[in-house]
Every structure is written in structure tokens, then in C-alpha cells.
């Protein structure tokens, strides 16, 4: 009898890229719902704009590079980039700002470096930083978090959509009436004005420990993150590393002088630290790959977030921290190569 021939192993692969990406997208759903609950429907429009442009940009680049677009789009990686970008954006963001970020991330940061697997920088963060630098005034229109006891005006769905499409608010509303500084901004401004942490925290927007809305979104992000850990889509080293890198200096500084240094809880829940730990820094392509290297990479990001928030001029430092550590990845990977079983230690050190 005759048979066909194949190469070993003859065993089904346990996973695929599309499934990993879908897991990431699914894990973001609770956080997305919380985001919409607290900051209104703008997030959905941002997500739609980012998604459409990211996928279109990816399709165009694949076509231009002579690849088959439908294959690579089916890996959902462009959608993950779009989702992470949408989380970074304020709920009121004009579509062209979002589109610029999405296109820069996918076209320049990803495909001009060779596409999925070859990009040095995290596409979502590269796109975010570009629009942060290019359109700084468009990236601070955070609407007030939805809360019973603070009487802010809220935009309707239609008004939000209109803003997303035109960049204009209804005539009766000014930016001041609807937007509020983020807790990180409030903290930074307050500390710059020589206020103490306790005085700053008296502002109702600061919430219980990390800012109204933010602290709960953070919790939902963490739920998704733990689910990814359980599903082994991500491994613990990077989240733990980011946590250590951010919380250890925050703790030390808080203990040294609690009046000028907000505590670790604030640093963790205000801003995008948790999202970064579980979803942004864990992008495998732009992260370190060895076990030890990932811990170092995570700690580096955490520490840079703390440094930028504390001593830099930006309120949050997630995007810069990630991009800076992206640059350090080749060196980290080279210096943290695992010991090959059966090799003597000195042969690991040389070369």
C-alpha cells in the first residue's frame, strides 16, 4: 500500500495567531464596557475609526508589498492595535486624529519595518505618541466621568458622534463645560502649584484611590488581564515587572514624603498602568522574549512610567515608557539568553 509523506511532528498545533489576538480582544471587552459607562460612547466611535483605518492601512500595505491581504488581516493584529489605541484616546477625539494614529501605527511602525513580527515598536503606542505630539490639544478632551454626585453636563450619543466627525461641539456647550482634567493631570498640576497630595485628593474627581472611573476601569482591565494569564496567552513576567517597576519607587517615595508623592494605589489605577501591564507591554513582537528578559523589560517600563509621571512633563508616561523599552529589547534579549542545558557557564558569558 502507498502512503503520503510528511515531516515530523505530526501533531496539531495548540494555538494560532488569530486565536491569540481574539483572546486579547475578548479580554478587553469588560474594560471597554466600563470605559463606555464612565466616559460615554466616544470610546466606541474611536474604536470604530481606529479599527477601520488600521485594517484599511494594513490591507493597503499588504497589497503594496505584494502579499495577500485577506490572510494577514485574518490574524486580527490590526484590530488589537486599534483597540489599544482607542483605550489610550480621550473619549472625545476627532476622527482624523484617531485615523492618523491608527495609520501611523500600522503603516509606519508596523509595515515599514516588515509587518507583523518584525516591528520594533509597539504600533499602538507609536501611533499614539505621534498624535500626542502632533495634536496635543486634541488629546486632553476627557469628558467628566459619569457619577451621580458631580453635576457635569454629558454629551448625548449624537453629540458625541458629531464631535468625532467634525471636531466641533454643539454651540451651547464649551469645552470647559464638559471636559475635565484626568486625575493624573490634576495631581501633576496640583503638585506643581505646591499643593499637598491630601489637598489635591479632596477634588471629587480623584475618587477613592485612583480617580473616579479610572479605578473601576482599571479593575475591569485587570480582570481581562488575569483571564489572559489563565489562558496562557500572556505570561506573568511582564505584568509583574511593570507592577514592580512602577509600585516600588512609588512606595518608597510615598513613605519618604506622602505630602508630595501620591501612593502606589494612585499610580496603579490612575492612567493606563494596568492596561500597559497586561495588554500593551505584553505585545510579544515588540517585547523581550526570554523569561528573565521579560521581567527586566517590565520593570523598565514600570520605572519609566513612574519617572515620566513624577519628573517628566507628561501626566502619563505609558506610551513613552513602552517605546523606550522597545529600543532596549535587542540588548535585553542578548544579555538574558537562558543557559543551554549541557553548556558550561563560561560559554554562555562569551560570544
Amino acid at each position: 500500500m502507498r502512503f503520503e509523506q510528511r515531516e515530523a511532528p505530526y501533531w496539531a498545533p495548540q494555538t494560532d495567531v488569530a486565536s491569540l489576538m481574539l483572546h486579547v480582544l475578548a479580554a478587553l471587552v469588560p474594560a471597554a464596557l466600563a470605559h463606555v459607562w464612565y466616559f460615554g460612547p466616544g470610546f466606541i466611535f474611536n474604536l470604530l475609526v481606529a479599527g477601520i483605518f488600521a485594517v484599511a492601512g494594513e490591507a493597503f500595505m499588504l497589497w503594496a508589498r505584494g502579499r495577500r491581504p485577506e490572510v494577514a488581516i485574518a490574524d486580527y493584529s490590526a484590530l488589537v492595535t486599534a483597540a489599544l489605541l482607542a483605550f489610550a484616546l480621550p473619549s472625545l477625539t476627532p476622527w482624523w486624529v484617531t485615523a492618523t494614529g491608527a495609520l501611523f501605527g500600522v503603516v509606519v511602525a508596523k509595515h515599514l519595518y516588515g509587518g507583523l513580527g518584525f516591528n520594533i515598536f509597539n504600533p499602538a503606542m507609536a501611533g499614539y505618541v505621534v498624535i500626542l505630539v502632533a495634536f496635543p490639544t486634541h488629546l486632553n478632551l476627557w469628558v467628566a466621568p459619569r457619577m451621580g454626585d458631580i453635576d457635569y453636563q454629558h454629551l448625548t450619543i449624537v453629540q458625541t458622534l458629531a464631535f468625532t466627525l467634525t471636531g466641533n461641539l454643539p454651540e451651547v456647550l464649551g469645552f470647559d463645560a464638559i471636559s475635565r482634567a484626568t486625575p493624573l493631570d490634576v495631581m501633576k498640576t496640583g503638585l506643581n502649584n505646591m499643593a499637598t497630595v491630601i489637598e489635591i485628593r479632596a477634588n471629587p474627581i480623584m475618587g477613592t484611590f485612583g480617580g473616579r472611573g479610572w479605578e473601576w476601569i482599571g479593575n475591569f482591565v485587570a480582570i481581562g488581564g488575569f483571564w489572559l494569564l489563565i489562558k496562557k496567552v500572556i505570561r506573568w513576567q511582564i505584568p509583574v515587572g511593570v507592577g514592580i517597576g512602577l509600585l516600588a519607587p512609588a512606595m518608597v517615595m510615598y513613605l519618604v514624603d506622602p505630602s508630595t508623592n501620591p501612593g502606589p494605589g494612585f499610580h496603579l489605577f490612575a492612567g493606563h498602568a494596568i492596561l500597559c501591564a497586561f495588554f500593551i507591554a505584553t505585545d510579544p513582537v515588540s517585547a523581550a522574549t526570554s523569561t528573565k528578559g521579560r521581567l527586566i523589560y517590565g520593570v523598565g517600563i514600570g520605572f519609566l512610567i513612574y519617572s515620566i509621571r513624577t519628573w517628566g512633563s507628561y501626566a502619563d508616561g505609558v506610551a513613552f515608557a513602552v517605546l523606550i523599552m522597545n529600543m532596549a529589547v535587542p540588548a535585553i534579549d542578548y544579555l538574558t539568553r537562558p543557559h543551554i542545558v549541557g553548556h558550561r557557564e563560561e560559554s554562555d558569558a562569551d560570544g
Partner: protein
Amino acid sequence: MTAPTYDLGKLHGGLRLDAHKKESTVSPIVQVPLPSQLILPIEQHVGEPAQPSVDIGDRVLKGQLIAEPDGELGAPVHASSSGTVIAIERWPVARRFGDKAPCIVIQCDGEDEAFPGWHHGDYRELLPADLLLRILDGGIVGLGGAVFPTAQKLMQARTLEVEYLILNGVECEPYISCDDVLMRENARDIVSGAQVLMHALQVDVCFLVVESDKPEAIQRLGEALAEADDPRIVLKQVPTIYPSGGEDQLVQLVANREVPSGGLPTDVGCIVQNVGTAAAVHNWIVNDEPLISRVTTVTGDGVNSPVNVRARIGTTVEDVVRCAGGYKGDPRYLIIGGPMTGKSVTTDEVPIVKASNCILVMSDLPSAGRELPCIRCGDCAAVCPVQLLPQQLVWYASADNEQKLREFGLTDCIECGCCDLVCPSHIPLTANFRIAKGRIRELADEKARAERARQRFEARNQRIQHEQRERDAELARQKASARAAGPDAIAEILARKREQQRKDQSE
């Protein structure tokens, strides 16, 4: 005195895979009927092929030597039944490189008449060195699949002060269950084989290692050990993780020692033998039967009733599959060995050889899916039992960067296939590494050839220079003697030369 304690080491990575062993272990071992023909490859071990010692037309008996070992790592081949040698020719075989190999074909006469020449007596009265030579004559090779000649492995161990004999009952690859059923049914033979090996090696500690998912084998071995009452043999259970049964992995797991890169377990005081090999040693030394049959698992969804069989070496897969109820439907793949490391072959005319631990017949195989670029998830590195970085290796392999491939340990890859399974981008990593290893070997050969050519070239240059120097010296000597003879003599010589030239011109 306290009992010695032994650390159980830890293996990096590995995978828990669906075992698929129950199908083939429900019934006892079935003896494959005597086939009409036996196909016996002369190369069933890692060393040089054996040299046929029979001619076409010769009558041979069961257990008779038909090919003698050649070279340092040779192993003899014996007839698995009585009959007539009808051909010595190339025949399809299952092996890594090439599809055909020289085989001795025996037409069986159905008598199954045993060769009367083997009588060993009590091995305990033999010197270890003599026992080793005797084991060599039995044609015994490692039955776990590596087919390293057992006697040579033992001899190597003898010269290196080995402490532990490790008997490998860790049959970690899915579907394969031949060692499991052998341990269940022939536990005593294995224990006896262990004692023979210990006498040959003069070691006092033997670990009999079995995975914890084989309770019946453990029970039978425990009973056999109690019966033998030999405290030197210690039964050890290890967790069921693929590929703990790899030789170096087992040493790491059981003795907590790392086999050095490019080295052997004997370098760290261990020698590993498969339980099937131990049983084969018992069969040869105690029962006077050389290695002419083995237990093989016949399984997969392409056979009607998966089962373990004892087949004579040289029985074709076709004949063996008949024992498992024949093919089910129209299977597409025939794999000799397991689903992780086996060899896919195109025909069932291939014979069972000493290495054949499994015949896996599959109606279909999972499609590997489309290959995407590496996303550097690092899952491959997380499961690699040798702690390599497959994601880096595959990169260097595609760039043909020999230096980096060596630096990142390509040659340490055991080709277990774990990285392939976890790769979300479905990159055929192991296949790439096999090719890259071949390429490295080629480059090394090329370098060796270039080096030889360089040496020859330099030797030639030296020779030419040497000759030139000698000629110069001779000339100088002649000149000197002419000068010593004085001006008249020089004039006379010059005149003679001119005369000679004139003559030459006129001619």
C-alpha cells in the same frame, strides 16, 4: 548507615500531550505469525553497516549470524527464522536519510528451526569484560529508537567510572506503548536484564524509571523486584511530561546532572538503557536468543484494532498491520515511530527493524495551518527541554548564519518537536532545524575538505621549495668546485659547453 538519597532534578519545559495509549494496551502482546519472507537490513544501528556473512542460496537457522559487525560501532544481524537466503539487495526501509538500504532477504521454510550454537551458561561466572563481548555478539542495540550498539555503550561506560545505570521505562511519546506492555508482561526479564547489565558494568545503583501514568507496569515491576530481592535496583516514578524519556533529559530528571553539550551520559556518571534493551539482554545472555524480535505498537485511527505485537525483525509492516485487524478504510499516512519524532514512509513494504517501536497509521493528520511570521511570543523557548531559543535559531537558520546557530546551540536540539506544537505562527521549526543541522554538518565537511586541500597545497609548496633549495645547493657546490679547479679548468669547461652547443645547432 543511612540510605543514599538522590535528588530528582527538574526538566525545563516539555508538554503534557494526550497519550492515546489506552487503545493499544487493552489486550496483551500478540505474536505476529511467521511471515513467508524476512527482510533484514544490515544497517540497524548507528555505526557502519554489518557485512553479510551468508551467500544467496545458503540455508540459515533462527538466531544464526548472517551479518558481522564492522567498525567501531558495529552490531551483528541474526536470522529471525530458518529458511534460505534468496537475495541481498536494496529494499525500502524507514530511516532518516534515503528510502532504500541493503537487506538480506530470507525465504522462510516454516520450520522456525533454532540455531543450536548459542550456549552461555551462568553469566555471573564471567568476567565483566567477557560478558561485554558476549553482549556484543547478541546484536543488541538500544531499542528506545536510537539503536546505539549496547555493548559498545557499556564498554564506554566501563572505562569512565559510571555510577548509575538508568533503565528507561519513560515512554513519553504519545501512541507508543510497547515498553509499557513489556513492563507489564515481562517485568521479570527486565529486572534480570538489569542484573546482567549491572554485572557487566560493575555498578551498584540502578534506577528503574517509569512514568506515573503506568500504574500496572509499576505494580508488575514492583512485584518482580520484590521477587528478585535486589536492593541495588530502585524503582522511580517521574511525571508524565514529553520528552522526559529522552536520554539526556532522563539523566537530568533522575540524577539531576546535565549531560554536557556534545557529550554522553557517561560523562556525568550515568548510562541509560531502555527497558526493552534490558529484556533483550536477558533474552540473549540467559535464554541464548539474540535480538531477533521486538515488541512494537501498532496503532492509530488507520488500523482496525490497535495492539502491541511481538514481531520478528524483518517482518514487513504490511504483515504486522494484519495482526492489528488490518487497515481501517484508506489511511493516508504511515509513520514508523511516534507522532512527534517518527518517520513518515510511503510504503508498507518496509520491514520492522530493531528501532521500530511503533507503527502509526493515520487516516489523516492535522493540517499544520498557514505559516505566518514569528511574533516572538517565546512559547517555543518556554517549552524547549534544552532551553534553546527556537525563535532566534529559526531566524539564524533562514540567514544560514552558522556561527550564530552554533552559539545558540542548534546542535543541542533534540528535535522533540515541542516548539512546533506551541508555535502560534505554525512555523515548522523542527524541520527547519533538521535542515540547518544538515547544513552545518555540510559546512563542517566542506571546511574539513578545504583544510585538507590547504594542507596538501602547503606540503606541495614545501616540497617544491625544498627541491629548489637542494638544486641551488648542488649548483653552488659545482660552481665552487669549478672555481677551486682554477681559470684553465673554467675555460676548458666553457669550451666544452660551446662545442656542445655547436653540435646541437648543427643537428
